[in-house]
């Protein structure tokens, strides 16, 4: 049911959204699109990934999301290679009968993509290039989803 793709090419958010919305049991589709931001003189960004592990790591978190929320479909697309400001980077789309499950699962998946999927960004600014450092805020965002013992799924 889940679609997971890693690719150099762009993706079509509207087409992916339409595909997930098909079916009588879907009442809500949430889509999140991450976009290459052009502030601070950013010229381009190159995304490196660990082929094989990236797909497997995303699949593990999609399976967890499917176990925690009543989802009718999940699509995760992550681009790699060189991107320029305005380019799409990542799409997370979740379909459910009701919005609560779709919103929560989309946010959960994005938080884990940031901290646990093996991707690394290298930014180019005015001739100089540097690897992006991991942000503490992202670790804190992912930690929110850690289940406490005895806690029921939301």
């Amino acid at each position: 049911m889940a679609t997971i793709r890693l690719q150099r090419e762009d993706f079509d958010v509207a087409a992916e959204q339409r595909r997930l919305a098909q079916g009588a049991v879907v009442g809500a589709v949430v889509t999140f699109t991450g976009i290459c931001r052009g502030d601070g003189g950013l010229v381009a960004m190159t995304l490196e990934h660990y082929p094989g592990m990236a797909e497997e790591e995303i699949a593990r978190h999609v399976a967890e999301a499917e176990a925690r929320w009543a989802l009718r479909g999940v699509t995760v697309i992550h681009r790699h290679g060189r991107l320029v400001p305005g380019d799409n980077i990542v799409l997370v789309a979740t379909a459910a009968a009701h919005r609560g499950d779709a919103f929560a699962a989309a946010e959960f998946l994005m938080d884990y993509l940031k901290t646990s999927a093996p991707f690394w960004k290298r930014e180019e600014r005015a001739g100089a290039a540097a690897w992006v450092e991991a942000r503490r805020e992202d670790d804190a965002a992912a930690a929110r989803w850690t289940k406490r013992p005895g806690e029921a799924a939301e």
Partner: protein
Amino acid sequence: MLESQKHDPEKLQTFRTRSCPGDEAGMKILYFAWVRERIGKTEETVEPPADVRTVGDLVAWLSGRGEEYAYAFENPRVVRAAIDRAHVKPDAPLAGAREVAFFPPMTGG
């Protein structure tokens, strides 16, 4: 359990390490992002000595192989590791590992 099936932990460890498939070919190691750049390779196959039992041991052993490795692992707590495509902690055992990867904290999404 039959008396003949008992092993002391040391022997069991040796048995597992020696019998895992691909042992003869050594251990494949992959490097990503600035870890890759500092070491100057994307991957290599190594044959660490038998006393290298954990990911942490492997980091220490690699660090002794040259300044490029020492530079990549100068702050070992920053570098993350995976065994056979799953995240692991430094105390994870290497027994049976086919592919070990080292990389900085992830910055995707």
